[in-house]
């Protein structure tokens, strides 16, 4: 068994200190040590996006990240995204557009979509499709997910306009 390491990081806005085995993935740390089960295991190889989280403002596959590499960084998981304004827009849009079926891929997609909208507030169909190419969904055929992300982007844009006004 491998060595342990003490790390400190920010998780969904809260500072955390933790001891993790060096070989452990961030996904295992989140699910097994911290009980944050919204981040899903789908493949463990970065091919399905079910474990997408945000690290220092960019999305990554938590299954490909070493937990020790979280040290000193800022993590946001679906649990954090869900209570943000962007997350609320996304949840409403995913629900209203029928973008959820079995729902197993949905947390990863919501996290990835929040990042996509932040980077590309005016994302068109092509940009949205490319933006979620790393998230597999077996149920929906993606159509309604793409529509939901477009709707959420629009809602966010309107929200920020109101904010400015």
């Amino acid at each position, binding site marked *: 068994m491998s060595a342990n390491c003490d790390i400190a990081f920010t998780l969904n806005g809260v500072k955390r200190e933790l001891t993790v085995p060096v070989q452990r993935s961030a996904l295992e740390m989140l699910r097994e040590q911290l009980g944050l089960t919204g981040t899903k295991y789908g493949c463990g190889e970065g091919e399905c996006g079910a474990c997408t989280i945000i690290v220092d403002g960019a999305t990554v596959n938590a299954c490909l990240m070493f937990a020790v590499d979280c040290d000193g960084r800022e993590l946001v998981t679906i649990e954090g995204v869900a209570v943000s304004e962007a997350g609320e827009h996304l949840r409403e849009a995913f629900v209203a557009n*029928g973008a*959820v079926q079995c729902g197993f891929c949905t947390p990863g997609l919501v996290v990835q979509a929040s990042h996509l909208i932040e980077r590309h507030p005016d994302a068109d169909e092509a940009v949205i499709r490319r933006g979620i190419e790393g998230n597999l969904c077996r149920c929906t055929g993606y159509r309604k997910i793409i529509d939901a992300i477009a709707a959420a982007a629009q809602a966010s844009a309107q929200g920020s306009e109101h904010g400015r006004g």
Partner: protein
Amino acid sequence: MGAGDTPLARESLIGKRIPKMDAPDKASGKTRYIQDLNLPGALHAKILRSTQVHARIVSIDTSAARRLPGVHAVITAKDVPWQRPIGVAKDHLPLKTDRVRSLRDEIAAVAADSEAIAEAALELIRVEYAPLPAVITAEQALAPGAPLIHPEPHGADASPHLKAPGAPVAFAGKPDNVAMTFDYAQGDVAQGEAESDVVIEDVFRLHYVTHCCLGVSGVIAEFDPSGNLLLYSNTQVPFLHKREFAELLGIDPARIRIIQPPIGGGFGSKLDIYPFEPIAIFLAKITRRPVKLVFTREEEFIASPTRQPVLLKLRSGCRKDGTLTFRTVETLHDNGAYTSWGATTPFVMMQTVSSLYRVPHCKYHTRAIYTNNPYAGSFRGYGNLQATFAVEAHMDKLAEALGMDGLAFRLKNAQEPGEITPQGMNFASCGFKDCLKTAAERSDFLRKQAENRARWSDPQPVKRGVGMASMLHVGGGAKIYPSDGCGTILKLDDFAHVTLITGASEIGQGSETVLSQLVCEELGLPLSAVTVVNNDTDITPWDVGVHASRTTFIAGNSAIGAARKAKAKILAAAAARTGLAQEALDLRGACIVRKSDGERLFELGKFLRGLHFSDRAELVMTSFYYEPPSKHQDKQFKGDVSAAYAWATQVCEVEVDTQTGIVRLLKVTGAHDVGRVLNRLGIEGQIEGGIVMGQGYALTENLMVENGVVRNPNFRDYKLVTAPEIPAMDISFIETMDGEGPQGAKGVGEAPAICIAAAVANAIYNATGTRITALPFTPENVYRALHGAATPLKWSVAA
């Protein structure tokens, strides 16, 4: 009620875009799937699988694994001498005794304090094998002198007290590698052939694909001190599995409770018991602790079921006037080492052969053959993708041979409402011709087909093609068991809140939302007034399970039945209170109203409280069991097996790059006879998802099984369709208002995945002039076919 209240008009939820009730939780990461459940004190289990495709087990040494700290139990077949064979043919012991028959075979299992310890323990188990010659194709399995997969009886040496009546204890073995055969005939194919002006014959090969549920397989098993089993399971058929697990354990089924947490995708994969489930139960029994067993993705690829790979020979004929005369089909199903539902897909395949179009003379023969390959289960469409692929290729080829357009040829032979086919299916509602015409018109099929064909000899390397295919599938359940029914219990509380307790499982398809809609439609309540309970066999009434696109139809009718009884009870009480006739009353907007003008008479909640707390102390709680008017097929496979049938036509437009073989699916125009649209959002989602699953089957997915080994057990090389690849989708609904369906609806869950591969094959032909009869249409396969470098398909099968 206040005098100023406006009268309530009747409002309907049917056909609206209703969001799924479980979607907000799922989109927030709050839904707890089986992978997310951790019971206090639970152990983690892992399975040791065979490293050999076919071998005798000489010895298994678990001593080092047992000594590893944190290991609570290591079991092999020797530790569970009472285990019994599982599966559709009961040919499969959960833990193998003396022989492994495929690489997935379970040899030992460990329960430990953590997954990591369990994995470490697996590495300490030593297995000695004596390799046996492997059988890696169905053709090879039938050759004279081929090695036998199940040569001798195997199974439990169960002590007598475990023997439940009728439960097979051992599998008798098979002397010839033939797991199952299916024969169906109508008319006289020799006569049909004699009457034909055109006769064609082709061999088709359909490949391995697998479900790829995003949530991997998992189970949690726990016994209480009295020996009652609680199982957290992803099963789609909890009540059937209760019985099977009981037989397996030799206990009374009443002592088994199955709880179904939300499931990360089903698509038919959870229709059978697989060895991992009994193994978790064995470990829980032995350790007296809750045991959780969850697959890795690699395990999911290797050890969960596949779609049935099929070699199929089709011979068809027609007259000069375009009338179909006969079809003869022979198939070889690669059964793999054990028998699951995949072997029984001929039930569905023969329906497409005999009854999608009117064909007077048909003969159908299937043999499901044991090999040392992975074994196949049920998968959305259930054989229909394979049958439709062949039948629709021949519809195009026959039309072309006659010089007829493919649409006119199909219309000439298409089924019509009221038809009772020679196989006994009664097409009470049938929108097939409307499907054909709608899909063709909306896609401009005939013009595009002619234009593409005219460009065959153009020099540009990228070609366009358009292709059409249609399908018939059960849409009103399928009576493959003596009952195809579903029960509902409905309870209204003091606040007019409905608890709908249904036997029908939610597997992500949105059934709880549709069932709530149907109940609200009857009771005049908003959707927010309903809670659905559908996941606990101690609470829910009987249901056959989620399969055969049956849930909306069967469970829907059941829910309506319970709601109508509740409504009648409420209105009878209101009639007694008001002196009005019961027929003059209605439920609208959570009120009891006068039907004629909508005037509010009582607020429903208040009225129910009145009932409840009156001298009569009446609760409004009803139950209903719906059994569809379908028939179990006879031994000749004849009978009206479903209470309704669904139809669809899909037109696919593709781009074929002849210099790379890459085929892009640009657009799918689908017309679906769904009876009636209940939840537009939900049904669109089912159809879009099915189309893209069909796209994967046609173009990208290929479980590469070579010499019994899955060569691509990962999403890197088993390629699901991703968002950038999806086609434009134009979907039309043909509403035929089925007389038996709930609000006129028919089942649609499987339909959209069925035609895509067939339509894409026809589109590739239209683009290039090359007809490919083997799936998948991955770039290299297509390139080889276009450039004459493909191995021709031959039927070289021993009789």
